[in-house]
């Protein structure tokens, strides 16, 4: 089954979806990346999906620490971790970056959207494209800076020479 079917027919795929390999890798990720934890399903075959897929809420499963009890005014909780799963791909994002459940939900969606994009589009994903752009700009800046420096050096030498000539 092609990976392109992954996002278009989620229900059929969740039944046959491969079990996330590399749970060990997930544990390592927890260690290295404190902000988000990702479980990725390894899928064979090339992915071809629309670029930066918008997340369909019906394909997401969300969990947060819900206070026991009535909620609202009657409760005062500060735990606000959001765990968001993209069901078709199995990618899970955990976010407790901010103090706000609301913000964490939005952030989790943004992060998940990018991760799904990378998963789906690999090299062609927005994240990778932006990285390449940034790298390219950086190289260009370096080059210009070097040229400017050399020019300055040259002018200085010229000035030194003309000074000593008088």
């Amino acid at each position, binding site marked *: 089954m092609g990976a392109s079917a992954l996002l278009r027919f989620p229900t059929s795929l969740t039944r046959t979806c491969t079990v996330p390999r590399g749970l060990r890798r997930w544990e390592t990720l927890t260690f290295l990346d*404190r*902000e988000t934890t990702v479980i990725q399903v390894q899928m064979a075959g090339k992915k071809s999906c629309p670029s930066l897929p918008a997340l369909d809420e019906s394909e997401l499963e969300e969990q*947060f620490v*819900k206070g026991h009890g*009535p*909620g*609202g*005014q*009657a*409760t*005062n*909780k*500060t*735990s*606000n971790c959001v765990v968001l799963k993209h069901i078709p791909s199995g990618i899970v994002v955990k976010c*407790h*970056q*901010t*103090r*706000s*459940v*609301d*913000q964490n*939900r939005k952030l989790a969606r943004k992060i998940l959207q990018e991760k799904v994009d990378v998963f789906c589009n690999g090299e062609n994903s927005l994240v990778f494209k932006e990285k390449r752009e940034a790298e390219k700009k950086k190289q260009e800046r370096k080059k210009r800076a070097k040229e400017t420096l050399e020019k300055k050096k040259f002018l200085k030498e010229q000035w030194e020479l003309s000074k000593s000539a008088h």
Partner: protein
Amino acid sequence: MKSWGRMLWALLSGPGRKGGIQSWAFSSWPPHSPLAGLVSATQLVSHWTTVFEERGIPEARESSEYIVAHVLGAKTGMSLRPALWTQPLTPQQLQCIQELSSLRLQRMPVQYILGEWDFQGLNLKMVPPVFIPRPETEELIDWVLEEEAQRPCTAGAQDGPVILEVGCGSGAIALSLLSRLPRSQVIAVDKEDAAICLTQENAQRLQLQDRIRIVPLDVTLEKSWTHLLPWGPMDLVISNPPYVFHQDMEQLAPEICRYEDLAALDGGKEGMDVITHILAPSTPAPEGLWVWVKSVFLEVDPRHPELVSSWLRSRPDLHLYLVAVRKDFCGRPRFLHIRRSGP
């Protein structure tokens, strides 16, 4: 190795720890003691989590993380620079954490301990007993913003909307609306002086004082609304009024009972007292405020949609109807949108 461990344990224990270990007065601890270099943030969080758990303090890990992160200059554990977790803490930092953690042992809410908290991306000062904004209320803001975004822009777009907030507390709702609706104006009222002061302070902190009027007012008092007439027509009323059912008040956690203003929570029988006063202000004059108000957004108890609905039916003179009920992130009916119908 063992002896310094035991000393450290005794040192870091709060007063009255089980097992009768005497806690040393922190001030007697020499600041240049070699112990100072041996404790990291991670160890301290671990330590206080255990202490809190043993003493039955809810959210033991979250509380100790917030306290330690705060002392190290971060808002959350997650946003703290990873390197800071393993570096040794200074005696001053240790002392600060000790003091704040002692407050947590007294069940003080974390928001009061830190003296500040975030709401809709804004940082607000928190001072007991002014009511601490709840996470659900952030969704009320989202809803109002969605509705506002859908309003057609009138030609030659005016300033607005003009918003009345009843029971402003720390200013959370008023200030987040002001910051997200750059042309809006807010009139924020509260019956408690402490809330008036805190909202004023937070408005200034956020440089929003020019677009807010903060008025001491008890909306349950006869004719109180007439004081608001000078500020003209309001586009919408928003409130997180006291809505806890009176009989439920005794079940509130110590964090709430001991430190927050209970008048900000107690809604009387069926939690409806303040809600009904907002929907039916005791202004007999027909040219009262309500003629101008189009929309009301309320946060309520999950039992209120039914109760408010039937109450509105019993008061056809108000020309108000329940437009929509919105659930919070826990799936509980939490927010009401009420509109005025008719002339």
